[in-house]
């Protein structure tokens, strides 16, 4: 087939796909609503949820996870464009990570030596490590599906962004239930759960986001 013939045929196809955001925003909102609903129905919100927002250590769980979520989704949106690879900036993602590590050190220093072990292990480590990945499934899938409709030229990095964004938002939903307010607990276990989901999403992205 001559290229000119192909051009004529392509030009006759005037149907364009809707822009990415038209899919991402509703899908992500739905996924997030589902995650919050699952937390509410299966675990319940913590009784002092509103009051806990006044506690700096406690509210930081929301701030840090929301920051990872928003930055991850934003990065994914940039990377969904072919030229996104050269437009994307990664350093903003490092900010909440550094803040979390700073908080971890601060909590380690300020927690009495005999209380550290207890603060680290807490009472709900297993629930946390199971629930955050479970709650991440829908949000991460929503972002990966949007990326699939896009045209990323860096599939693994886009998968990474999807994993980080989706699991950050999922961890935020989980924090509505979680009563562990020590950074020794949440930086460690939320962090581990988010890192695990992000790793898996990176591997999935590298496979399914090629086009």
């Amino acid at each position, binding site marked *: *087939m*001559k*290229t*000119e*013939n*192909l*051009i*004529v*045929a*392509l*030009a*006759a*196809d*005037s*149907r*364009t*796909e*809707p*822009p*990415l955001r038209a899919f991402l925003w509703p899908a992500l909102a739905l996924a997030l609503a589902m995650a919050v609903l699952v937390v509410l129905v299966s675990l319940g919100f913590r009784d002092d949820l509103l009051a806990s927002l006044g506690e700096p250590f406690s509210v930081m769980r929301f701030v840090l996870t929301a920051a990872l979520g928003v930055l991850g989704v934003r990065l994914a949106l940039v990377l*969904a*464009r*072919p*030229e*996104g*690879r*050269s437009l994307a900036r990664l350093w903003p993602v490092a900010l909440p990570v550094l803040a979390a590590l700073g908080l971890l050190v601060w909590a380690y220093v300020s927690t009495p030596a005999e209380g550290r072990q207890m603060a680290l292990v807490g009472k709900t480590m297993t629930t946390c490590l199971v629930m955050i990945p479970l709650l991440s499934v829908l949000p991460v899938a929503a972002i990966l599906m949007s990326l699939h409709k*896009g*045209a990323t*030229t860096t599939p693994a990095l886009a998968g990474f962004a999807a994993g980080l964004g989706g699991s950050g938002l999922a961890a935020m939903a989980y924090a509505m239930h979680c009563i562990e307010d020590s950074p020794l607990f949440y930086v460690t276990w939320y962090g581990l759960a988010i890192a695990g989901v992000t790793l898996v999403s990176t591997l999935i992205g590298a496979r399914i986001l*090629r*086009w």
Partner: protein
Amino acid sequence: MDDWGTLLAEANSGDSRAYAAFLRTITPVLRGVVRAKAGGLGEAICEDVLQEVLLAVHLKRHTWQVGAPVRPWLYAIARYKVVDAFRSRGGKVEVPIEDFDEILAAEAGPDPTEAADMAKMIGLLDDRSGRLVRMIGIEGSSVAEAGQALNMTEGAVRVALHRAFKTLAALRERHLK
């Protein structure tokens, strides 16, 4: 917004004349890109790769944001597809994106190369889709004429045509990997 941006914006809002003009404008530039990176493989293979790039541009044109510069977007697609195309043909090319600005456009020449791959892929489509693409592309039928010949409404022709190009891209992926 430059002239490419104007054309692409009109194209994305459904103006097929602007879209054809856009594709004809970028084709020599993309051909230049492909030949500069892999001219050693011969003109016919370069034309195959060029057509793959055009198909990719077609299916991903909704990822261009109105107002964004067209060239970085286009070159990113070209780079990705050229690397991919040659990797799947067993070769390897390095395509630094910065180089694209200095590449000279290449016209097809007096006797345009007949690329083989796309015809092969069209042959793998179901009969009706294959006929549709050939009628419109090669025989120069309009959407309405193709619809009459195949006993389909214009809307159905458009849907089928769009699906045919998506299938072509998927077939190509499977075929070459």
